[in-house]
């Protein structure tokens, strides 16, 4: 089933908006991570790690899930399909992987926030390079997905070739 151009553009707009928002939110985590490592004021360092947990739950996760959902909808409701082109499959895998890692990493955000919230904990134990590293890797992954979406490199999967053959024969669509 495919949709008309107006719905297709609406879905595309929604997908681009939430995905760019997701990348921006990861940029915010990166900024907080740098602040947490570089700031000298104890309150600022603790605040940076405390802010990451709600940011993850209220901004990162919703945007990641929205990006995944709008991407799947868009591929299923247009001629691209979900499993017909290698670039769509690869982009789906990248988004799925990033979302699953983010979901698992929420435990780390919670643990870092717990340490940061404890006034007795040493500032050295509060500082953690992990969120910055993960944010950079996440940005690189989403950048790769963006490149795939813009360039759309050619290549049909086996399933895509089968579908195309069936359509040409006038059989199952």
């Amino acid at each position, binding site marked *: 089933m495919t949709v008309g151009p107006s719905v297709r553009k609406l879905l595309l707009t929604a997908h681009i908006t939430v995905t760019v928002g997701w990348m921006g939110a990861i940029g915010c985590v990166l900024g907080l991570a740098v602040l947490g490592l570089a700031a000298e004021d104890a309150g600022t360092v603790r605040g940076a790690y405390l802010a990451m947990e709600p940011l993850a739950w209220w901004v990162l996760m919703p945007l990641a899930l929205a990006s995944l959902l709008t991407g799947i909808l868009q591929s299923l409701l247009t001629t691209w399909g979900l499993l017909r082109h290698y670039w769509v499959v690869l982009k789906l895998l990248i988004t799925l992987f990033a979302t699953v890692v983010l979901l698992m990493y929420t435990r*780390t955000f919670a*643990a870092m926030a717990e*340490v940061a919230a404890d006034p007795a904990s040493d500032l050295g134990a509060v500082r953690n390079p992990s969120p910055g590293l993960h944010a950079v890797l996440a940005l690189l992954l989403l950048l790769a997905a963006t490149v795939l979406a813009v360039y759309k490199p050619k290549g049909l999967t086996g399933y895509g070739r089968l579908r195309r053959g069936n359509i040409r024969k006038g059989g199952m669509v």
Partner: protein
Amino acid sequence: MPRWVKVAIVVALLVVAAAVAVMLLSGGEHGPGRHMSLGVPTTVLSR
């Protein structure tokens, strides 16, 4: 399979291998588990 897909698979495998190597070299301490023990941050437990 197009060449770019093969290159992407090789790059992905190299990245995964590098991540595994980093984990092994750092004593397997990676992921949420390194911050927690029975749900309590290790830094809290150690105090």
